[in-house]
């Protein structure tokens, strides 16, 4: 760990430059890029959601290049076992069996971005390993403890195919700072660029445009702590945050209404204390990126859906149609709760 003081102004310039470079690579995704930047500086793990081929891997590789450090990726499959993350075995040229470190520990503590593709295809045993990994940033292998202090987990859920998938338990979902939606742009000229501009056809060349290690990944934990210490809240905003939290747990009591929904039975469990703490953590980074040292309601709004929606446990009647109800519900909470 570094003991030298953090110059937050200089780091903010770096963060905005990092954001600018990502936006140059990823067409029409300014909000996604902003949320990823927030996640990087809040030191939170991220669930990614999006269709195939919309740029999730490109985004993650670009982020990893900008952060510096090592990048690893693993594909979730139904036969994936926890051991596959920490070691792999093979027969060497000399015909003797070999055991080598797996993707999690191959780079040691240098690992900064770990991408778990289609996490819901992996078995619950793998999810359990991931729980500890995300919470403690440590993993046990070869009779020792590996510390991964700068690692961030980015995971993708396959929402299209349901066969042979294992839905993430709520405890695992709750450990993700945000669930970010990655979508292809809507604007016609951007679609045209993606289609006809050859610059976007070669992902590796595109990612190479991002300056490597724009952010020093070994300083990010210190920067994140400094941001959380610097950006302050107020009594009124604290009250507003608590109201928002309670409205996700007891929406009827707070006057939240959804058409065609029995709001009394809509929510089985609202946001957890860890969830709202992460919400404020992300909101503080948003305020810092906007050049403020005080939180305002809009900071909470900017990250509320991504930080809270995936933590809500809906009634089974509505759970199967979560994409249909989650966003309107969050919007209604924000529309209903007043501040001041």
């Amino acid at each position: 760990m570094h003991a030298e003081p953090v110059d937050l102004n200089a780091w903010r310039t770096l963060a905005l430059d990092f954001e600018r470079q990502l936006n140059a690579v990823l067409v029409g995704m300014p909000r996604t890029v902003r949320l990823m930047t927030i996640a990087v500086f809040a030191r939170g793990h991220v669930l990614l959601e999006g269709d195939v081929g919309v740029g999730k891997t490109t985004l993650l590789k670009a982020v990893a290049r900008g952060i510096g450090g090592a990048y690893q990726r693993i594909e979730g499959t139904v036969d994936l076992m926890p051991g596959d993350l920490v070691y792999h075995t093979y027969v060497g040229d000399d015909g003797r069996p070999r055991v080598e470190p797996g993707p999690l520990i191959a780079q040691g503590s240098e690992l900064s971005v770990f991408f778990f593709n289609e996490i819901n295809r992996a078995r619950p045993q793998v999810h359990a390993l991931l729980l500890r990994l995300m919470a403690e940033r440590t993993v046990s292998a070869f009779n020792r403890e590996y510390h991964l202090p700068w690692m961030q987990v980015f995971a993708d859920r396959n929402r299209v195919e349901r066969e042979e998938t294992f839905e993430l338990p709520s405890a695992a979902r709750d450990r993700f700072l945000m669930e970010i939606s990655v979508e292809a742009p809507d604007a016609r000229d951007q679609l045209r660029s993606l289609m006809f501009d050859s610059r976007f056809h070669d992902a590796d060349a595109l990612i190479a445009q991002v300056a490597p290690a724009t952010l020093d990944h070994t300083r990010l934990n210190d920067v994140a702590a400094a941001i959380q210490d610097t950006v302050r809240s107020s009594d009124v905003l604290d009250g507003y945050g608590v109201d928002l939290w309670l409205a996700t747990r007891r929406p009827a009591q707070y006057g939240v209404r959804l058409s065609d929904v029995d709001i009394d039975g809509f929510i089985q469990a609202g946001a957890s204390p860890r969830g709202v703490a992460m919400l404020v953590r992300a909101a503080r980074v948003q305020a810092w990126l906007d050049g403020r040292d005080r939180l305002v309601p809009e900071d909470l709004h900017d990250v509320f859906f991504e930080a809270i929606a995936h933590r809500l446990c809906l009634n089974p009647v509505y759970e199967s149609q979560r994409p249909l109800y989650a966003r309107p519900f969050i919007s209604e909470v924000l529309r209903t709760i007043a501040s001041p």
Partner: protein
Amino acid sequence: MNRARHASFICTLVVLFASCVPGAGARAADAGGVTLRHIDWPRSFGYRVGDTVPVRIALDIEPGWLPDRDGLPEPGQGDRQFELRRLDVTDARERCARCSDYTLEWQLMKSVRSPQTLRLAPVTLRFRKGSEVRSVAVPAFAIDAAPLLLWQSKKDWIDSVHPGYRASPFTVSAPLRRAGLWALAAVALLAAALWAGGRLGAQAARPFARAWRDVRALRRRTSGDAPALALRALHHACNGTAGCTVFSETLPAFLQQAPEFADLADDLRAAFAASRAHFFGLPPTGRFTTLAEIDTLLRALRDRERLHAWRAAAVAPRPAAPAR
């Protein structure tokens, strides 16, 4: 001899007569130890059945003298005409140092059929000190009683209730009309004041009218939180008008939804910025820090809200007449 007898007889009559005259008893009933000082007789006329007739007797009682057993009349005693309701004994220091007032309250029990003079019987009060006994005689007294009559009709009811009294009738319609007009004027004035203050009709429910009223009420507050409360009132009014929470970022959408406030957009933006500065600790903007500024903005918003409501009411289609 006959003359002497006549003179003696006349003197006796004079003495007897004097003893019967009210007030004369005070002079005549000096029994020593207990002295009759004065009798307050009630009026002698205008009684009807059920009325009370109080007789107050002031006695100067030397120390040691107490009412004898059965020396005072008991409540409930009386004749067919009067009944003693109660006997009160009170100190009467204003008369003399040892004086007490004995008040006999008689009640007229007889219902007369025509105006009649009734005689209140004489009473003797007896006091004892050891073996010595003194009596005080309260002479008889006469009152005039009148009958109770049934109302023959509403027309002469005053005469029937109070026989002998002639009421002079007067017309009350003119004063009643005057009083009604004044009451009507007062109600109209009150309604006008309520309307002007925004407390009457549909405007009472309009968010900015309500907020402006609340802020006006804040002028009486001496605490320093009045501007903060006024800003809250402004926010509530915006939220009430929009039907959802209005934040700085959604203010443009609010103004698009409610274009009647568009000319106040700059002031609204400034007020919201001041609110953010006040409530969330941002640097102060210098505007909308006083109650008067917020009051002025809210009044302008209320005026536009009212104008918009009138226009909307004017162009609203009237309900179609039911088909015959």
